[in-house]
């Protein structure tokens, strides 16, 4: 049976939609800490299924009330970055196996030629503004998407001005996301019953933008970006800069073993074959 994912033009939508679900859970966990804990537990105790609880005005009000809590935002951002890292790279491998290419808006495109994987970057620094990655089916309000990008532009400018050594890709993404969510969450005032939907959408989009911006910032400082179990990226400066991607051996093995329809025969050692 062919998956419907094979017909999707790029992997961006899959990642953002899955991240929205992850964000919903992370926001729930956030409400189970601190001052909102008792109120959220009381709400949970009155329903059998999570959806009615999350779409209740009471839960939404708790979330809106917590939206300015810096500790809450930092925890949400850290968890989101951790989850996005796995979601992103697993999706990349999956798409390369199924489709021979995997495009992430604002990041670049991986292409597989037989078993060799190459990468064509979409360097954000070459563009006047961060391109929108929002798709109609995934985002409830394009204003959220615009807000995410405006705030991220400001944060990116701050990073450029700092000129200091950068943290690792996940650490920088997390730092950017804390800044983004810290600016977005307090100004989101959705209807209480829709709060989880809006906050989760904003968190998913913001985490994706922070991720691609962090990658761009890291690679442009000429730092090789190494992703364990995936590969390493190195900027090759020039009139038209390119990024070389070298896949890890384990990643190549994963691709090789999953794209070839037939199982191999036993390896015969040279001596035995002779």
């Amino acid at each position, binding site marked *: 049976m062919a998956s*419907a994912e094979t017909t999707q033009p790029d992997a961006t939508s899959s990642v953002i*939609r*899955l991240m929205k679900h992850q964000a*919903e859970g992370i926001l729930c966990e956030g409400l189970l800490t601190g001052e909102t804990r008792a109120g959220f537990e009381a709400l949970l105790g009155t329903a059998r299924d999570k959806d009615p609880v999350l779409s209740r005005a009471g839960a939404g009000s708790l979330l809106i009330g917590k939206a300015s809590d810096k500790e809450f935002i930092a925890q949400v951002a850290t968890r989101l970055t951790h*989850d996005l890292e796995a979601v992103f790279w697993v999706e990349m491998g999956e798409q390369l196996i199924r489709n021979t290419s995997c495009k992430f808006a604002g990041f670049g495109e991986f292409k597989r030629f037989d078993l060799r994987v190459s990468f064509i970057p979409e360097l954000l620094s070459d563009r006047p503004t961060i391109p929108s990655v929002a798709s109609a089916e*995934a985002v409830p309000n394009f204003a959220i998407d615009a807000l995410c990008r405006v705030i991220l532009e400001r944060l990116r400018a701050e990073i450029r001005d700092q000129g200091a050594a950068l943290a690792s890709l996940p650490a920088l993404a997390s730092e950017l996301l804390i800044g983004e969510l810290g600016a977005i969450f307090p100004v989101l005032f959705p209807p209480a019953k829709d709060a989880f939907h809006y906050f989760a959408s904003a968190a998913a989009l913001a985490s994706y933008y922070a991720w691609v911006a962090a990658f761009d910032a890291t690679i442009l400082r000429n730092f090789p970006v190494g992703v*364990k179990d995936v590969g390493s990226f190195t900027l090759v400066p020039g009139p038209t800069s390119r990024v070389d991607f070298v896949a890890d051996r384990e990643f190549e093995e*994963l691709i090789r073993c999953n794209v070839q329809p037939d199982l191999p025969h036993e*390896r015969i*050692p040279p001596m035995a074959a002779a």
Partner: protein
Amino acid sequence: MTRRGGPRIQNAFVVLSDLHFGNDLYESPTTPLLNVSLPNFGISEERVTRFFEDRCRGHFAPCVKRLPRYLRQLLWQLREDGFPGDKLDLLILLGDQSTLASASSYRFLREYVSQTEYETRDGDGVFGCSGLGFRSPDVLAIPGNHDKLLRKNLSLYNDEFTRKLDLAEQVEPQRCTIAVRRFGAREFIFILIDPSTYCVEDLTIEKDCRSHLAAGNVGKNLVEDVRTKLMFLKDYGQLDADVKLATGFSSAMKVLLVHYAVDETRFRSGLDELLLPHGCAGLGELVELLRKDFQLSMVLHGHLHVPLLYNYNGVQVISASTATRVDENRKTGFFLIKVFDTGAVIAEHHLWTGIAYTPDPDKALTREVGYFPEARVPAA
């Protein structure tokens, strides 16, 4: 790598435990939230609440998506090392298949286990991943405490998972089921047991919940059931038309499948264990009985989400971690069990690094765990 002239892999089993599947692929690990009012537990109320928050987390979607791809990679490597099969021989599920027993989580699980592709959709679009693609006869599964969490029996688990997946072996509360699997010249006797304790009413938490939320108890009926069935198999070579040995009882490898840990003292527990027990009373005694009277060779268990290989009074025990859930400061992973033509049985641990599965560099988790009794059965 196995070379010609060296030991050759004859069989390979994958052991997955504590999958903790949520309602669907895309559902976040935090949900479903358990919406049950907690009575006043006094000192342990906080702990019981934490149990639901921490232990009722569900699967991590990237793990679920990557696992079938990684198993395909392992199968490739096995083939290159001389493994004769075109699929892994057996999938062993050690309980807590679902994080909170529900029809939707078991539908997700059985399609994921049995199909080569899994596809679903939320309100916004389609999600999909590869499936494990195992045939029903190649799956052995026992329930865990989460598969009957706040349930008074295993009806939901067996109705929605065991029967709909058409598994030959169904386990009932405080009962055992015997499965015989023959691979070439070798036979395995798997002893599947459910020593869980149950609540009185579905979806209610009473003051005695500490006895059944996470703990088990090997009751007299279970001991008698195991003893009777194994005695019969030992004496007559068969239990019924489907469960029969082609060789003598002593030539088969006897493996106990149980969700709970045989020896909890091997695992760090701390205050949590005092306030919310995770043990299984009588399990050690049962293992001892099976060793003495029925030559038990090995026990496979899950439950504590800690991978470990240990010896319990002469019986090799394999403790499997959670394969698809990510817990803070714990290893996510699974064991591959390889049986060689020499009779050696090797357990090999693989872990989730945060992005991918990979062989566990901890050498203590990959080693010989048993030796097959001499094969006397002619190959089929």
